[in-house]
């Protein structure tokens, strides 16, 4: 279990978020607050809208109504350039790692740096930044490999290194342990915890893995029928007698 104590300063606020695809109301008034230094786990059944919510949060999907405020900025009021600047503060780890398969590991890690002179200044040599990110995930030796030469767990760690290279304040994890064996999944979770400790990041973790939630969460939200059905710590939720909540912990 994660014993770190987050601040009570909100870093992300979502109010009454709604998103529909035709008649399918995926998000129907979702509310959420992420505090600084906190690991917030969002659990829900497959197709409950967890990934849609996280994509609305980063602006990959346009929401129908409601507000998403990240570090005091309402994302729907930002232009493209302002949104890109804000995105340097928010890392995103994709479920399938999403490494660029035509690029080497080094190029994958260098890619996000190319547009962010504002944050880093003009970078003449990217090697120290790339090496630091790779060392953080314990894969410095893979620097010249292609993604196809890596295992699933290694890909996930490289994707995490690529997320870290922009030194974000917030990291969004979309199913970080899905598709991995239990040992590798645990390694990834330990890595996520050590990163949070080292860089004092806040994180939203989308998962339906109870072990993942137990290990990493400070707080949890259950997403049911497009709304935040119940909120609390892992212990509080696991002791709930509500059958809909219990269904996740059986």
């Amino acid at each position, binding site marked *: 279990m994660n014993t770190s104590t987050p601040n009570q300063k909100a870093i992300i606020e979502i109010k009454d978020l709604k998103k529909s695809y035709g008649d399918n109301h995926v998000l129907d008034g979702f509310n959420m607050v992420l505090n600084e230094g906190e690991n917030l786990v969002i659990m829900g059944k497959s197709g409950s809208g967890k990934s849609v919510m996280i994509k609305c949060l*980063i602006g*990959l999907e346009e929401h129908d109504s409601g507000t998403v405020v990240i570090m005091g900025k309402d994302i729907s009021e930002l232009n493209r350039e302002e949104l890109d600047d804000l995105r*340097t503060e*928010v890392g995103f780890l*994709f479920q399938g790692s999403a*490494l*660029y*398969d*035509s690029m080497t590991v080094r190029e994958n890690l260098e*890619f996000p740096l190319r547009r962010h002179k504002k944050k880093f200044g003009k970078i003449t040599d990217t090697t120290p930044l790339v090496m630091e990110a790779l060392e953080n995930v314990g894969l410095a030796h893979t620097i010249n490999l292609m993604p196809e030469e890596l295992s699933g767990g290694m890909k996930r760690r490289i994707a995490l290194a690529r997320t870290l290279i922009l030194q974000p304040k917030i990291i969004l994890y979309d199913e970080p342990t899905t598709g991995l064996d239990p040992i590798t999944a645990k390694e990834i979770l330990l890595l996520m915890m050590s990163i949070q400790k080292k860089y004092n990041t806040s994180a939203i973790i989308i998962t339906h893995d109870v072990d993942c939630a137990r290990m990493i969460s400070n707080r949890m939200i259950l997403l049911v029928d497009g709304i935040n059905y119940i909120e609390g710590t892992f212990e509080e939720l696991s002791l709930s007698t509500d059958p809909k909540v219990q269904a996740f912990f059986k």
Partner: protein
Amino acid sequence: MNSIFKIIELFKSFLLEVGELSYFAGRFFKEAFKSPSEFKEFLRQCFYMGNRSLLLVAVTGFIIGLVFTLQSRPTLQEFGAVSWMPSMVSISLIREIGPIITALICAGRIGSGIGAELGSMRVTEQIDAMEVSGTNPFKYLVVTRILATTFMLPILVFFGDTIAIFGSFLVENIKGNVSFLLYYNQVFDALEFGDLIPATIKTFFFGFAIGLVGCFKGYYCKKGTAGVGLAANSAVVFTSMLLFIIDFVAVFITDIFYDL
């Protein structure tokens, strides 16, 4: 009655697709003039596309030149007009056969490649990953590819035409004992700027169409990995149809200018 509704639905979806493609083309022109230029990626794509198609265009051009001459020779011989062979070959190759055949080959080779590549990047969330890292994926992936096909196709057509005329010369040299100098003199005598300029201009449009449709199909690829195959396949079909439409319009416009 049911089949009428089906035809109407098909026509509606076709119009919708054309509308979306036009919007996509509009976005291309909007993004193409914005910074950053992504010049390095544009050059990489030019090299990649040119390099990937060069051998195929060369072999096809050579065979077309050979076959075209072999097939036409007996008929011309019958009318005692074999000496017209270099002029006929050069005009028909440069005006029509070279550009359209090269464009169709590139639609199959480059267009399907772009559709499959962008499609697989879409379904594996690589395009989303670019977006969240603050890079404009439309500019980086789409604009560079469309520009590369637009500028590379005329070069490939020029190369294909040259090889085709050489193929034709080989046949004439073997069958009619025509010298290299005589053959090429007749080729260049027959050609005018009126043949070269419209043919070259239309190849830019062919290249643009190949890049545009390939990117459009790949960028909006749906239905998982099955959608990748569909994107590649429909990119070739749609582009081939579009190439003939552009060709018809180009010939029609050229004809108007000739009349003037």
